[in-house]
């Protein structure tokens, strides 16, 4: 601890008397291994609207093949690498989701099909907004449901790292009155100035330390503390566990950093990551092509995360969201347009995996929503509600989803009791 740090701590009223004076999360970071391990939720947003019908294929539906003459994934067949990977005789996974098939067989992956937001908007922006605010149809909600969860379940000593988004800006889902960090890159959450780094930081700490600003000084203190923690993590370097190989894409890097924070025991409770590029109006492709490529790097990133965390997945659940599904039929450009319900993936040690949950609405003309899209049979808030209550131990969902009554009767029970 150099002079400037002492100055900062002293002037912000903190006496330096051994470890006891350090914030609890720093203590935890230092004494990492002995810290109690809390439950963790990772929310992964697939922006642009994933084509759930080609990701989790209802291969037993004749109508599916009639509606999608050029982009349908063939029925499961031994020896056909382009065919769907059968899950339960009715649904199958896209062949590019082979790594998810493993998780499914290991009972780590559950799928909820025909799930999503009940609002009928087909605007990406509105629909993403609704899914993040947790209040479909109401545009003026100023905070996100994940942030409201943090407020609804206050914890004794809040870690700066309790809520982290692996994005450059704090996403809508984490905006609100509870603190949350946006860290696109752990290594860059720092101020560096070559050999003058200490000097530059020293000046900043001196300014905030000597200011009595009731709002900014405490925030600055958290910032410098987070920087210190990350410094230590970065110096230690990071080697993924179990020889996990993260793909070199941004999602892989985001999840790698989330795993790093989880293992560092810095008090992470909710994390957010995102992956874009799902809006395939043109030449979506079938077993090969644009969607296939994206599904492959998406699933391989998530699978690497699961491999990396190994046993620790017992504490972690990762759940995916995408703003809406896509049209049941393919369009004239061999793509799909904006639709309604979608498939959600739930992954973790506490998941009763190896099953596709939910009620299948069918693809017959009269079964489709507005005659064109997969109908919705599970509200995304019932999926999230089950995770929040049974995994994270939330008790007041009314605060998290103020415009919706989450009814445990409607939970799909994809979590172990």
């Amino acid at each position: 601890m150099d002079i400037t740090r002492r100055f900062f701590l002293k002037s912000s009223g903190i006496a330096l008397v051994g470890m006891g004076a350090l914030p609890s999360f720093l203590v935890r970071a230092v004494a990492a291994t002995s810290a109690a391990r809390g439950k963790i939720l990772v929310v992964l947003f697939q922006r642009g609207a994933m084509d759930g019908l080609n990701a989790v294929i209802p291969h037993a539906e004749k109508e599916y093949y009639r509606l999608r003459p050029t982009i349908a994934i063939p029925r499961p067949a031994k020896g056909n690498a382009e065919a769907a990977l059968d899950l339960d005789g009715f649904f199958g996974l896209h062949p590019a989701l082979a790594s998810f098939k493993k998780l499914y067989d290991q009972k780590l992956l559950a799928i909820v099909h025909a799930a999503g937001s009940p609002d009928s908007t087909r605007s990406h922006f509105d629909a993403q907004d609704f899914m993040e605010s947790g209040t479909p149809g109401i545009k003026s909600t100023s905070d996100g449901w994940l942030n409201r969860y943090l407020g609804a379940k206050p914890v004794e000593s809040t870690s700066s790292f309790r809520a982290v988004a692996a994005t450059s800006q704090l996403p809508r889902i984490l905006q609100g009155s509870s603190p949350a960090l946006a860290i696109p890159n752990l290594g860059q959450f720092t101020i560096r100035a070559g050999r003058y780094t200490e000097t530059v930081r020293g000046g900043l700490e001196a300014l905030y330390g000597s200011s009595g600003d009731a709002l900014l000084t405490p925030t600055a203190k958290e910032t410098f503390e987070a920087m210190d923690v990350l410094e230590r993590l970065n110096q230690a370097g990071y080697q993924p566990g179990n020889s996990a190989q993260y793909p070199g894409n941004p999602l892989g890097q985001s999840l790698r950093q989330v795993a790093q924070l989880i293992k560092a025991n810095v008090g992470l409770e909710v994390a957010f990551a995102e992956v874009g590029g799902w809006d395939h109006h043109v030449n979506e492709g079938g077993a090969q092509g644009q969607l296939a490529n994206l599904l492959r790097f998406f699933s391989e990133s998530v699978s690497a995360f699961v491999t990396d965390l190994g046993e620790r997945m017992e504490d972690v659940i990762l759940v995916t969201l995408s703003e809406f599904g896509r049209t049941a039929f393919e369009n004239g450009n061999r793509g799909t347009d904006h639709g309604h319900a979608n498939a959600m993936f739930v992954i973790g040690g506490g998941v009763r995996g190896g099953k596709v949950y939910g009620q299948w609405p069918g693809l017959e003309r009269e079964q489709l929503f507005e005659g064109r899209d997969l109908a919705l049979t599970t509200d995304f808030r019932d999926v999230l509600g089950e995770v929040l209550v049974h995994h994270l131990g939330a008790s007041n969902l009314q605060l998290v989803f103020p415009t919706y009554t989450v009814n445990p009767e409607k939970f799909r029970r994809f979590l172990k009791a």
Partner: protein
Amino acid sequence: MDRHTSVSRSFLAVWLSVLLLAPTVPMAGAAAGERGAGSGLDVGARLTEQQKILHALNRLGFGPRPGDIERVQKMGLSAWIEQQLNPASLPDTAVEQRLASLETLRMSPTELIVTFPPPQLLRQIARQLAIRAGMDPEAGAEEIARELGLRRPGRAPEERAGRQNPPASAEQRRQQMEQLREELRRGPQRIVVELSQAKLIRAITSERQLEEVMADFWFNHFNVFFGKGAVRHLTTSYEYEAIRPHALGKFRDLLGATARHPAMLFYLDNWMSVDPKAEADPRDLRRRYLASALADGVRPGQIYADILRNQGLDPSKYLGADGEPRGFGRRQMMDERGINQERLLQRLNELQNQRGNRQRRPEQQQQRNLGLNENYARELLELHTLGVDGGYTQQDIIEVARCFTGWTMRPLQLGPKFLFVPEVHDRGTKTVLGEKISAGGIEDGERVLDIVARHPSTARFISTKLARRFVSDHPPESLVKRMAETFTKTDGDIKAVLRTLFNAPEFWSPEAYRAKVKTPFEFVVSAARATGAELEDFPPGLLLALRELGQPLYFAQPPTGYKDTADAWVSTGGLLNRMKVALGIATNQLPGVRVISVAARADSPDALVAELGERVLGEPLPEQSRAALTEQLKKGLAESGVQGAPEPAARLALGWLLASPEFQRR
């Protein structure tokens, strides 16, 4: 794919690569010497004259430039305020000259569409040309797109993904910067970059500071989101034709201008709101669009020809003499009722199916059911006028939505423009906030605007929001009440309401002094003003900084716009980024932003910190901070061991001061 996400990512990649490369702040020694320090912040029962001037510069404008305080002192504070309330009296030629290079500011929506065609229009062109050539509509379209050199809309995800990784080498960075420059020159991103640059330049250099504050306030109040489809080509016109002319005018005029502007009609979906009971159907809408375009001398298909010409191609090679794509001549578009674009679409579909030799899918032909859309009605009441607690019901929202049925816009390819289509308007009697509305035409919507603009809840709501912007996050009730009275008395005269505000003791109270935390926009603008930083057109460093700080200009997605209260902006990541941006500006590490010289007179660390502190903050740095910072500066100088070059040390001190908690407030 949503273009804006890829845009933002490519910005981001460059930004990350440029700024986060461990800026090395060069240090050098300075001669020793001591000089007396300034006093601490002195907020007594009343503001001093000096504090009042600083307060006014911070609130009516974006903070003082060096010399501003003296200038206002000389002319008198009340004279300066009066001048700010009458911006037309202030010459602003320097700004106009500076903006001359930003060409898109002077382009109409149609010109913007032709110059920066939206991907779906390019697809349509390629497709129609493919059909004409007897090719498969899809494969052919791709081939033609390549042949014509039309930019292919969207990129493969891997490619897009790759762009997000910070580049490894200097050469890669340079290439990426070049690529960004090219994208900005040709792509629709240029529209938002130039809009943002103009907004920054005006806020930083315009003499008409209050006008800029109000233009920003109203745009944010009547927010539209640049990333949503057609809004991209309409935002320039929206800001310059709907918002700015009324920034200090009458609220009703401002409200009316936003209600009719295609950007708002599209953003809040009213363009597709029709009476579900009307016998008319979407075809009537299309017919009206075409008739309106023809009446304005816009030929359908003309925009295609213009786009081709703009790409350096001869339209006659591809299009018929009448400007239509060949094979879709005028005759096919006419029937006994006049123009029938439906026939055109049908014909297109037939051809598609013939040539593509593919199964006809009835679902695809299905019209999207149009109906009542409540989005605009809801936000009009909740966000634009009455406020969420303004005393309206869900039924009022429905009734207002009914009044606005038929308020639509001509689509981009026909030259976007407000249009009222009586065939899809709900002519029934509506009851809005207790008042019956039954004219049955465009007057219905206008009547709604009259009612809500003059409603007491609106007077209160707007006054509260203004007081929050100018005074504090929780403005005194007494002040809001008097402002609302003025609002009502003057029929929503914005200038009069502001006068009440600027004359109020609450505005000048010590509690209000430095009570507001700056938004990122206010932060970067005030930093540029305090340092005299110059902006280059490219690369747009401050714009990138704003993206990092969480306030990318014109990209507020929700209709609420950006918040201007501290809770929205004070966070660990946000503060860290402010520190980086502050250091980046002071040390010229922020691309496209240059502080030519710090030009400090001081010759000792003590004097330097005191001098720059006063320059940046407009008043002396509090004593404790000054002493602490001086100590740090001396320490740094001692470590560097270099002698006799105060400029780098001055830059470091400047960066510190811009990053200081005092500078985060106004």
